[in-house]
């Protein structure tokens, strides 16, 4: 073997030249490899960015679900989970009467972990919104199906990113992600989350509007039923008391006393009826009213109700006709509730009719075997602009309607709710000055 240094100078120079070429080529090769790596990585990043932008666009499509707040939150955080890794996602909303913390569990974690994420989210919200609300005032709800893991008390929140939800300047909530893994999110992920949060703010803002409305309706129903209950109890005592004095079982009363007590009893009875209506309505609205749907004979029920009203119509000099189709079979409905509807509609007809009379009809629809009931009067009729107000609660038609009838304006609203619960329809046909016809349908099948 001959060493390099033993070669003639000329050869050594050529070898050096070759070596230089080789290292130059190696450098170029390394550069090419790096370039390839850059291209691959950049492509991957671009792919991810494209994927993220499609997800961001999808956020705006969530608005289709805004009527169901929890469903909306679930879909929203679900979308985020497709682009960003996290264990628990939290959406805190504070809007009017609506204070909620919705929790979405992506990977099963312990309760302790969840609580830590919520607390951090809450602290962040207080800081962002500058409003100090009591932590306990937030209703906590889980929106995902993933169960909470048992045990695992010592799970630390290693990474958490929080973005405020705001439209304009007002911060009305925050959305936060918590993770057990260390290592922060990449720029792209945070950027995406930020964009999603901005989009989400608009969607959540809309949904919160619905939620606030729902909350108000719930509050109204609760208020109505509580108040009515509280009013009914003492009233029952008063009613009973007057009744006992009136029937003479506590001793003889004179004519004046009787006349005063009579007036008192009439008014207490009226008040009692009104409160019952309010209570019924509240129950119907909150869905607490129980329906006892059974096979019933509509012909029999109509005949019963009409019989009860006969005395009133005769007193007023009105006719009360019944036209029932022969082939009416037994159909499913709650007899007590339908009696209430019929009584109410016939009562109304009597109230607003001074001449002529009332016709009650029942016919069967051959196609789907549903029953159509009609109560037609020859009264004054309803003005066109008033028809739409008819079935709305607390609305009374005509200026002196309330005074004349002494009602709450709930009767028809209750009828509508009852008929609707039977999956039937109720409507009115009327021409001002030419009588009114109320119609409702009851489906033949058991659907309620």
């Amino acid at each position, binding site marked *: 073997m001959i060493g390099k240094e033993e070669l003639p100078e000329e050869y050594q120079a050529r070898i050096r030249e070759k070596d230089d070429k080789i290292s130059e080529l190696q450098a170029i090769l390394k*550069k090419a490899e*790096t370039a390839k790596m850059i291209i691959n990585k950049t492509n991957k990043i671009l792919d991810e960015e494209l994927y993220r932008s499609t997800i961001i666009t999808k956020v705006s499509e969530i608005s289709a679900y805004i009527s169901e707040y929890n469903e909306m939150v679930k879909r929203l955080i679900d979308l985020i989970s497709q682009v960003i890794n996290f264990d628990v996602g939290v959406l805190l909303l504070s809007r009017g009467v609506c204070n909620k913390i919705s929790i979405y569990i992506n990977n099963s974690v312990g309760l302790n972990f969840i609580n830590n994420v919520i607390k951090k989210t809450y602290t962040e919200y207080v800081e962002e919104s500058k409003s100090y609300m009591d932590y306990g005032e937030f209703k906590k709800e889980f929106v995902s199906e993933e169960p909470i893991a048992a045990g695992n008390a010592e799970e630390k929140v290693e990474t958490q990113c929080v973005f405020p939800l705001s439209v304009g300047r007002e911060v009305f909530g925050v959305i936060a992600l918590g993770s057990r893994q260390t290592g922060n999110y*990449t720029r792209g992920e945070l*950027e995406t989350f930020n964009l999603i949060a901005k989009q989400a703010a608009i969607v959540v803002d809309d949904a919160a509007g619905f939620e606030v409305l729902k909350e108000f309706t719930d509050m109204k129903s609760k208020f109505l039923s509580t108040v009515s209950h509280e009013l009914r109890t003492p009233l029952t005592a008063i009613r009973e008391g007057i009744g006992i004095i009136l029937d003479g079982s506590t001793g003889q009363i004179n004519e004046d006393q009787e006349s005063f007590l009579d007036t008192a009893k009439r008014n207490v009875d009226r008040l009692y009826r009104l409160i019952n209506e309010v209570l019924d309505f509240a129950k119907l609205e909150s869905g607490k009213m129980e329906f006892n749907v059974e096979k019933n004979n509509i012909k029999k029920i109509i005949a019963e109700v009409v019989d009860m009203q006969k005395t009133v119509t005769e007193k007023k000099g009105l006719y009360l006709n019944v036209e029932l189709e022969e082939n009416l079979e037994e159909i499913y409905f709650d007899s007590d509730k339908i009696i209430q509807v019929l009584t109410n509609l016939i009562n109304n007809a009597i109230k607003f009719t001074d001449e002529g009379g009332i016709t009650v009809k029942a016919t069967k629809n051959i196609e789907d075997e549903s029953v159509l009931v009609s109560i037609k009067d020859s009264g004054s009729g309803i003005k066109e602009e008033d028809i739409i107000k008819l079935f709305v609660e607390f609305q009374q038609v005509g200026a002196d309607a309330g005074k004349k009838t002494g009602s709450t304006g709930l009767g028809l609203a209750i009828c509508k709710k009852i008929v609707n619960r039977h999956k039937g329809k109720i409507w009115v046909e009327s021409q001002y000055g030419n009588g009114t016809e109320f119609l409702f349908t009851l489906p033949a099948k058991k659907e309620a």
Partner: protein
Amino acid sequence: MSKKILVIEDGQLLMDMKCDILEGAGYETVRAVDGIEGVQKAYDEKPDLILSDIRLPDVDGYQICRLLKNDKLYKKIPIIMTTASKVEKKDEFWGLQVGADAYITEPFEPENLLELIKKFIDIIEEDKEGNQ
């Protein structure tokens, strides 16, 4: 231990000037004359901070930035972008979009550059102390 700064710059004169300033302030410098070399050295040398020109042959400053800022291992390295022209609105927009940490326009005063660098180095130090 002195901090390692990767300087990516295709102009020989500017490169020498920048490195002189940094070395004068006690930093260790690593040079890269184009984008590909810049990325290579960023991965090989793991610098504490990167000072990169926006306009570079092959792979430009934005691409370097986007690449490193999307990499979990390298995203914490601060990147300061330099540009010879006055920063255009468009440049700043894309720069921030890909995650550059700061901008400096050439020509710049050495003190300004050093001040900016020190700010980022201090943040890194604080983070390290915080983690311990």
